[in-house]
């Protein structure tokens, strides 16, 4: 039996705004969030612009939550929390709510490693592993390992919201954001959970991610030298899904699907393609990586008019580094 899956709520955050209203207004006004890169001197990379989310609370290194979540985990938390609240998911049994996330590359926070590496250098400035192992490694923050495990960020969010159901964390190419939505839709459709949050979050804008773009990979032209012109960005989005007209009725929430912003997700195709990425930077938010698909979905759900097909969104691998693609269709429920 194929059961329809609807969009019960959505939340987005990107460099254009911290909530959907801000983003909608910025898009309507044709604003661009691409601007000078902040946080470190990137002039030597030749890449001096990015679309970054930048508020003090997101970069406060003394905040233990950020230590565990990492900066992009913190951004993810914001949108998941908002989608969860908007869909009233706290009204459902914790075991019947799922969480499916596509996450961008987790690069080591170099600044966390620097004291240990500095103390491990020999007279020529080269790394001496014996020094590192002898004790210099103790200068690494003890929570650093957790920040390298992106599932820990997702687990922390689940703990905070008391989500206990089916779950998945995929990484790290752009298509994993689409797959997170597809697996969430599958879980709702098959009755594994009653509702699911599907989300995606980009990788960090940091020296390593800039360097990765700079060196180019296996046929993809480096940024600024032709080919896929990607603008790095921090962004994230979340979509809450649940059955339409299913066995689990929860009063007011069912009425939400009759509202003008309701949407339905139906899996029509999933597969891969080796096609080069089709980057559209016209929205001024840059390449969202794994966040791209859910972001587009959220925007589509927001703009749906009665009876119309919302959007066909396809997401290819973010850099052409490997095979992988998925596709989904967003439709208004009949």
């Amino acid at each position, binding site marked *: 039996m194929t059961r329809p899956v609807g969009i019960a709520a959505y939340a987005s955050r990107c460099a254009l705004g911290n909530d959907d209203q801000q983003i909608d207004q910025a898009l309507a006004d044709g604003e661009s969030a691409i601007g000078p890169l902040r946080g*470190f001197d*990137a002039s*030597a*990379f030749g890449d001096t612009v990015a679309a970054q989310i930048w508020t003090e609370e997101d970069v406060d290194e003394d905040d233990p939550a950020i230590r565990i979540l990492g900066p992009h985990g913190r951004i993810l938390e914001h949108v998941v929390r908002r989608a969860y609240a908007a869909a009233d998911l706290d009204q459902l049994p914790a*075991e019947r709510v799922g*969480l499916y996330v596509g996450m961008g*590359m*987790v*690069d*080591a926070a*170099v600044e966390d*490693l*620097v004291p240990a*590496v500095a*103390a491990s*250098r020999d007279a020529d400035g080269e*790394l001496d*592993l*014996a020094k*590192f*192992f002898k004790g210099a*490694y103790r200068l690494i923050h*003890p929570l650093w*390992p*957790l920040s*390298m*495990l*992106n*599932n*820990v960020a997702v*687990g922390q969010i*689940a*703990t905070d919201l*008391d*989500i*206990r159901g089916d*779950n*998945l*964390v*995929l990484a*790290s*190419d752009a298509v*994993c954001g689409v*797959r997170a939505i597809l*697996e969430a839709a*599958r879980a709702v459709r*098959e009755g*594994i959970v009653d509702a699911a949050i599907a989300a995606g979050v980009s990788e960090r804008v940091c*020296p*390593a991610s800039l*360097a990765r773009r*700079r*060196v180019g*990979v296996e046929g993809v032209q480096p940024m600024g030298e032709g080919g896929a012109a990607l603008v790095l960005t921090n962004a994230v989005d979340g979509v809450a899904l649940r059955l339409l007209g299913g066995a689990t009725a929860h009063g007011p929430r069912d009425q939400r699907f009759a509202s003008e912003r309701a949407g339905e997700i139906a899996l029509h195709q999933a*597969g*891969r393609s080796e096609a080069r990425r089709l980057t559209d930077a016209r929205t001024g938010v840059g390449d969202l990586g794994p966040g791209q698909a859910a972001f587009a979905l959220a925007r589509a759900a927001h703009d749906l008019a009665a009876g119309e097909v919302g959007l066909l969104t396809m997401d290819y691998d973010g850099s052409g*580094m*490997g*095979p*992988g693609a998925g596709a989904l269709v967003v439709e208004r429920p009949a």
Partner: protein
Amino acid sequence: MSERVVVTGLGFVTPLGTDPDALWEAMLEGRPGVTAPHRLGPHDPPTKAVGEVPAPVLDRLLDERECELEGIEDRRTLFAAEAAADAIERAGLSTDANERAGVVLGSGPGVHRLEDVARALDEEGRFDPARFAANVNAIHGESLIRNRVELPAERVATRFGLGGPVHAVTTACSASNQALGMAFRMVRSGECPWVVAGGSDSMINPMGLVFFVLLGANANVDVNDPAAACRPFDRRRSGLVMGEGAGCAILEAESHARARGATILAEVAGYGSSFDAYRTTAPPPDGRGAAEAIRYALEDGNVDPNTVDFVNAHGTGTKRNDPAEVAAIRSVFGDHADALAVSSGKAAIGHLLSGAAGVAFGMAVLAVQRDGVLPTLNLTTPDPTCDLDFVPGKGRAQPVRAAINNSFAFGGQNAVVALRKYVPDAASEQA
């Protein structure tokens, strides 16, 4: 559309070798694969016991695969490619016309090579982005590109021309089981005729060898007897021992397997996952999240708990995991828990992290197929909080009608796959 899902091929790379028959015998006999670290041993790392893939095996893999894989040095990818190749070959699958066949592999996080950070420091020991950028072409691939989580899955798909979905699951110690579960759903729903699923990992590198030391999760090690360091369910257990390797399986639609006359090793009956929603690095003492995942897997596959004979446990040998897992097993199986054979292979080969459940799944498949249960090594001092039949020392032959493969991760993700002996039904025979 709902397909029965069967296992038709297995591939392994472990500290005890790569051949399934030899690995099964070694595990059954209780042969230890944990040693002192060899590769980085001369630098005296704080991790004193590891499950390393032996150098001769590694050399053979490099010889056989290096050209095909364009000089890949990332060990996770090398291991995954080997395990996947063996699984595909043993399944008798053609590598042609695989437009809808997929790959889902669990894989661990990438880490920077420390020498790349060292080169970017200024005279005062501060990180200088300009130096980092100036040497960008000298930065090792493993610090930027080859540490990508999806690289093993991509390489397997490319190598074998698999045209279906290609994904990487990154949920640490539960990653392989989640990959297997995702693949199971893909095949069951008809999305893919077959999927290479499992996982690989290796953190036997400078950052990896301090990773669990920083977290305080490493086992205490008697340097004269590193093989005894990991002691799942033993009262003297003190933590985990890291290992490396890969385990891959071919999950295939029963109709597809039968149509091509494949040998079916076992049936994947069901899959369940859950969150603990408790603490980042510790499970709830009552094992409630793990219990939910076990229960979901059994319900998903309509598996009567009383038909389960073997539990391939997560069994890390940490103080908190083991009794929580026992509590979970008891809460699901009730009185039948005392009839279960429960074992952990981590004492023998170490904790393969994102690849752990991939190898454990393969072992569970062989247990179901061969009617045998594997042992738990180093279990010499019983713990009253861990009071199941852990098959200490050596494995044994016994009927295995159904089995479950447990895995639980830092972060609270639990994933369990249920297996049962394959028995064709009337519809299968008719087809």
